[in-house]
C-alpha cells in the first residue's frame, strides 16, 4: 500500500518511508526492555500453557474462569496467598467453585470444591506429576487434601454426558 494515502492512521508522517536505522533499532530495543519491565509475563505462565496443551489433547471442553476472589485487603499479584482464595469456573452445563487453603502440614494445599447443579460426579485432579480422582457427594461437594503446588486442572465428567468431560483452565496452586 502507499503510505501517502490518508487512512485510519491519519496523515503521513515524515520519515515513515525510510528504512529502519540504528536509532529505530535502539528505540525498539529500549522499548522492549521497558515493556517487559512494566508488565512482566507472569511466572509459570509457560508451564501452565504447556500443561493446558497436554490437557487439550484429552479433548475436554474447557470451562471459563469466572472470577477469582482474594481475601479482602490482600494485594492482587501473581501469587496471591492461598488462604481463602476462591475461584469459580463456569460451563454451560456446570459451575465449579473451589476454595484453596494451606493444608495441615503447612506446605501442601487443600482444595474444597462444589459442583452445581449438585450431582455425584467424578472429579479428577490433574497435575504434571499425576492425577487423582474423587467423587462429589449428593450436595456436589468434594475435596482433595495434601495437593502439591504447581499447575493444576480439574476435570469433571458430566452426568449422562456420555464422554463429555469439562476441564478448568490451568491454575497455579
Amino acid at each position, binding site marked *: 500500500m502507499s503510505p501517502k494515502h490518508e487512512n485510519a492512521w491519519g496523515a503521513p508522517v515524515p520519515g515513515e518511508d525510510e528504512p529502519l536505522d540504528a536509532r529505530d533499532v535502539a528505540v525498539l530495543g529500549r522499548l522492549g526492555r521497558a*515493556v517487559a519491565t512494566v508488565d512482566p*509475563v507472569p511466572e509459570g505462565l509457560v508451564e501452565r500453557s504447556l500443561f493446558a496443551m497436554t490437557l487439550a489433547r484429552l479433548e475436554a471442553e474447557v470451562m471459563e474462569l469466572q472470577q477469582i476472589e482474594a481475601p479482602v485487603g490482600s494485594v492482587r499479584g501473581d501469587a496471591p496467598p492461598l488462604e481463602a482464595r476462591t475461584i469459580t469456573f463456569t460451563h454451560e452445563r456446570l459451575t465449579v467453585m473451589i476454595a484453596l487453603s494451606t493444608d495441615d502440614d503447612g506446605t501442601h494445599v487443600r482444595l474444597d470444591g462444589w459442583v452445581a447443579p449438585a450431582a455425584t460426579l467424578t472429579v479428577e485432579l490433574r497435575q504434571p506429576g499425576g*492425577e487423582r480422582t474423587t467423587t462429589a457427594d449428593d450436595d456436589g461437594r468434594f475435596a482433595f487434601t495434601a495437593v502439591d503446588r504447581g499447575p493444576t486442572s480439574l476435570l469433571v465428567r458430566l452426568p449422562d454426558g456420555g464422554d463429555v468431560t469439562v476441564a478448568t483452565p490451568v491454575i497455579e496452586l
Partner: protein
Amino acid sequence: MSMQIPPAASSGRAVGSEVPGRGPGFSTSPHEVRTAMTRAAEEPLGGTPDADESLGDRAARAVLEFRQGRTDALTDLVREATPLLWHTVRAQGVDRDVADDVVQSTWAALVRHADTIAEPKAVLKWLLVTARRAAWETVRKGRADLRRRTELPDDVTEGAAALPDSRPGPEAEVLTDERDRILWSSLRRLPERCQELLRLVSLADRPDYKAISASIGMPVGSIGATRGRCLAKLRAVLTEQGEASWT
C-alpha cells in the same frame, strides 16, 4: 460434608500424566528450558533449519512436527512466543488474572486446531489473532457483567472505563531510568493501535513485524520494510522531548 482423598497412593488411579492421543504430554520440566537459538543450532529437524529462521518459520515448523507427533519444537515455541501473546492480550485491557487464562487457552486452541490450520506459514498470525479475539471477548463479557451488576445505565461508560486496563500510568513507576520514562510517556501519546503495534514489535525480530502488523489490522508493510508511521510518530515525539539520539 466433604469427601477426602488421601495422597495419591489410594486414589486407585495410576500416577502419571500419560494421555491418550499422540504420546506423552508437553514436558514442563526445567531441564527442557532452552532458548530457541540454541535449539536451532543443536537440533536440526525437518530438513534444513536456517540460522535466520524467524519466529513465524519456527511456528510453522512446530505445527508441522506436532502433526507428526513430535512436540519439542512446539514446546520451544510456547517458551518463545508466550510474551508476544501475553502483551497482545494485555493490550486489549484484560487484567492479569484473566490474561493468564486467555494465553493458556490460545495455546490449547492451537493444539486442538493443529490439524486444520491450512497454511502453516500463518501460524504466528493465527496465534496473535486468536489471542486478540479471545481478549476482546473477555472484555466484552466483563462489561456486560458489570452492566448487569450495577443496573445503573448511567454508570456503564464510566464503569467500563474503570475496568482493569493495560495502559499503565502509575505502573511506569517501575522504570527507574529517566530515558525509559521519557520513552514510555512518549509512547503513551500515540494512538492506541500504534502503542499496541510498537509494544509487540519491540519484543520481536524484524522478519516477524509483518505477521504482527497483519494480526492487528495495520496496513501491510507499515513497519519492517520501512520505518512505518507508528515508529516515525514515536520518533517525532521523542525528538520533541529532546531525545535526539540513543544509538
